[in-house]
């Protein structure tokens, strides 16, 4: 029920000898619409042109989006398979590389069983490829060990939503409605740097008088103009949200009719939040009572509000609890399933939404089905043409795979579209695990830090060299179009999986000749699941500017607004969260007296494998830095630009200081996009959330020292 679709009919520049190919950006979950300029003669990508008619972003792009095309024909692209010989990579043929993979995979499975192999996927790939990763691991390799980098990104949101709402779709409303919202309650989301093109919607709403409450230990670009900035101590989010619930209940802001009709657990929740008085909440969170009262009053009185959150609250060892309590705020106000209101988590990776729905997770099968459910296994086995008893059991989460390597259970790994050597927490342990592996295959289009550990590197393609669908942060399924032919001898990830499957004697299960064939199978595999894509076709996506899932049949209009009538739980009612606040896994003490938190800068994407190779982006932000309050730095006699040694229980690193008053005085912040000695994940804590198995990137105890 999008109220308006913007089609301003603006002309685009199209130079002579060039064609414009309509697609979407390869980076974050905004999936901004863009045209790629291609030279008709040479077939090379030469530039980018805004796409004014894409309703979600209206031609807007961030600096990453503008320069994304520069990675496609980049000189550092891997163009042939590489095999490590005597510690050095040498170019090889596909035959040679596949022979080696086949030999090692078969040998290890013979010696150590099927589960000696593992697959580590990623969600910057299309839905088709993400779907195939699950099938490849379970059918071609027959292993239970498959998981993906979304474990570090979206799994807590998924866990929290499943618990409270019964279905995990990141945003319960289309973003084109956001400009009609009256109040934004934003927690742990640095919108301006992580999803810049979403800002236009927030600012449009602000022009119309919308209020904004921002919860963040740093005074981010959006916090600086918020009505209330709750400068929270990292790791105390569920206390703050419980405090909000307390005031909402106390002051009668609850939508009683909605809660009685559509929610369970209200009495328990009321009982629990009784103790979270503003004073008690203030003691835990470090936010003043006045600000808490003001924020709850603004939120409680707004007729249409959206609660939004992101990695700030999710990348914690209590991430699922945090998500549940914040979601309960929206439920208590009766905001879910209404126009211009609801709850939204914001995906950091391009296909963070679609990629987590289709069986890349250790315990999941396509369409949000569960391996633990025999009916689900039976259905998917039927689609794949295997016997249900052949379906491997659930494996372990991404970080736990490294424990399995250390214990000798996993002997080989195939990493696709991911760079855990930078993005996993406690990276020194991860590096050590990679060294312990008998055999490591990495598919990537640049030599990533992970690829350097590999025995075989397979040249994969960029997003511009293949087609398929992705699901943006709204839950809108969109089309990525092929812009040019693959460079050198590189192949798409689905071709690579197919080739290895053939070598493993499972070629009959991977008969695909092109992407639409995979898409059709994947639609069928998701049919009847919670994330039902069955009714979505390429034609419909083109005609309707994307289709929102669930869309169970071709005559179904799709679902822009979720939960209008009922929730995804078995009884159709949402479960309000009654969860007490718990301390972060590691809190400051005498030895490590400060809190370290990590995040993004606008110029880089994830582990920086792509963006660190783009000249403009590197000029803007060439290296990590530590952001600290002058009050804190003065205690250590640190000046702007001084080198600071930061040490946690897991490691230490040296970076330059950047002083600003726009951060809590007891916190320091380091962006995470660099590898090796510049990787802040050497310091972060791998404590996992008990449900989502997401590590605690956002909070750990650290000490500082000025070094010369």
């Amino acid at each position, binding site marked *: 029920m999008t109220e308006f679709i913007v089609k301003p009919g*603006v*002309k*685009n*520049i199209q*130079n002579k000898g060039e064609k414009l190919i309509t697609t979407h950006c390869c980076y974050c979950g905004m999936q901004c619409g863009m045209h790629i300029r291609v030279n008709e003669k040479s077939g090379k990508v030469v*530039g*980018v042109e*805004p796409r*004014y008619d894409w309703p979600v*972003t209206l*031609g*807007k*792009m*961030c*600096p990453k*989006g*503008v*320069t994304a095309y520069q990675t496609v024909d980049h000189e550092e692209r891997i163009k042939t398979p590489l095999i490590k010989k005597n510690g050095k990579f040498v170019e090889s043929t596909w035959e040679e590389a596949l022979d080696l993979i086949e030999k090692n995979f078969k040998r290890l499975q013979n010696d150590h069983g099927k589960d000696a192999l593992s697959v580590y996927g990623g969600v910057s790939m299309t839905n088709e490829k993400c779907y195939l990763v699950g099938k490849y691991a379970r059918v071609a390799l027959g292993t239970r060990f498959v998981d993906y980098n979304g474990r570090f990104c979206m799994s807590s949101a998924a866990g929290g939503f499943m618990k409270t709402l019964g279905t995990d779709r990141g945003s319960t409303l289309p973003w084109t409605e956001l400009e009609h919202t009256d109040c934004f309650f934003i927690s742990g989301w640095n919108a*301006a*740097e992580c999803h*810049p*093109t*979403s*800002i*236009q919607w927030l*600012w*449009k709403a*602000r*022009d*119309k*008088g*919308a209020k904004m409450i921002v919860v963040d230990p740093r*005074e*981010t*670009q*959006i916090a*600086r*103009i*918020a*009505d209330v*900035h709750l400068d929270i101590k990292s790791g105390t989010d569920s206390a703050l949200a419980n405090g909000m619930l307390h005031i909402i209940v106390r002051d009668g802001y609850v939508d009683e009719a909605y809660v009685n009709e559509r929610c369970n657990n209200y009495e328990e929740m009321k009982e629990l939040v009784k103790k979270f008085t503003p004073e008690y909440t203030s003691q835990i969170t470090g936010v003043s009572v006045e600000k808490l009262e003001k924020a709850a009053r603004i939120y409680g009185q707004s007729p249409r509000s959206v609660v939004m959150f992101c990695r700030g609250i999710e990348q914690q060892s209590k991430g699922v609890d945090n998500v549940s309590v914040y979601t309960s705020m929206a439920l208590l106000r009766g905001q879910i399933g209404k126009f211009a209101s609801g709850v939204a988590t914001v995906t950091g990776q391009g296909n963070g939404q679609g990629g987590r729905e289709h069986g890349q997770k250790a315990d999941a099968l396509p369409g949000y089905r569960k391996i633990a459910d025999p009916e689900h296994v039976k259905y998917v086995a039927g689609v794949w043409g295997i016997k249900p008893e052949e379906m491997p059991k659930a494996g372990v989460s991404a970080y736990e795979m490294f424990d399995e390597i250390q214990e000798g259970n996993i002997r080989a790994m195939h990493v696709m579209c991911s760079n855990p050597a930078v993005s996993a927490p406690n990276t020194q342990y991860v590096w050590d695990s990679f060294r312990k592996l008998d055999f490591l295959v990495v598919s990537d289009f640049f030599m990533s830090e992970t690829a350097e550990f590999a025995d075989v590197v397979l040249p994969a393609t960029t997003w511009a060299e293949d087609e398929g669908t992705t699901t943006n942060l709204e839950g809108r399924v969109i089309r990525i179009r092929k812009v040019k032919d693959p460079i050198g001898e590189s192949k798409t990830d689905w071709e690579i999986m197919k080739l290895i499957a053939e070598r493993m004697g499972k070629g009959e299960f991977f008969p695909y000749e092109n992407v639409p064939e995979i898409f059709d199978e994947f639609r069928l595999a998701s049919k009847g699941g919670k994330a039902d894509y069955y009714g979505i076709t390429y034609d419909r996506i083109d005609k309707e500017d994307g289709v929102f899932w669930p869309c169970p049949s071709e005559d179904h209009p799709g679902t822009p607004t979720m939960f209008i009538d009922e929730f995804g739980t078995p009884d159709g009612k949402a479960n309000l969260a009654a969860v007490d606040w718990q301390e972060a896994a590691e809190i400051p003490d005498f030895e490590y007296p400060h809190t370290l938190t990590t995040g993004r800068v*606008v*110029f880089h994407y994830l582990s920086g494998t792509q963006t660190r190779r783009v*000249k*403009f*982006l590197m000029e*803007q932000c060439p290296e990590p830095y530590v952001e600290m309050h*002058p009050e804190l730095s003065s205690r250590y006699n640190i000046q*702007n630009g001084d080198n600071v040694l930061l040490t946690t229980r897991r490691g230490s690193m040296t970076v330059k200081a*950047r*002083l*600003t*008053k*726009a951060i809590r005085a007891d916190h320091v912040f380091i962006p995470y996009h660099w590898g090796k000695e510049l990787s802040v994940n050497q310091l972060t804590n791998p404590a996992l959330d008990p449900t989502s198995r997401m590590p605690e990137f956002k909070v750990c105890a650290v000490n500082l020292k000025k070094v010369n």
Partner: protein
Amino acid sequence: MKKVMYLEFERCIGCRSCQAACRECGGHDAKERNYVEYIDFFESRQTFPMMCMQCKDPACARVCPANAIQITEEGVVLSAMEEKCIGCRNCTFGCPFGIPKFDFEENKMYKCDMCYDRTKHDIAPMCASVCPSDAIRFIDHEEMMELRRKRTQMNLIEGKKPSENDKWQYVPEFFGVYSD
């Protein structure tokens, strides 16, 4: 060209998309001609885009001894003409906004030409097209006058001032730039 560039500083989120996009414009040779600055990073994350004002009586053109800086009939102040520019750099000193820059390798001045190949067809310049926060807009003159009139009602400014730290004292007023 009936439209004007309109800047609203407090909307700026410092992402520098405008700079990245400027490099993409035809003939810009991967050099940006607009800039984004922090007002005072030590105090706040407030940034602002610094664009060519396309002055009605441009100082850069006035101080050019070779008459190399042309102004189009729509009022767009162009980069120095290669065949006329003598490389004296007077324009870089003359501009009060620091917009013209000098390319020592090519021995010529370059500055924002308001993406003339786009704007002459009424297509927004690259910087305004991509600006994710609408801090830079390419809009009708009437729309700009309307926005200016509404200025005191605008939520981003009035009635929304955070009381802590007096951040707003760092925010300059926004303005529209005329091109006709």
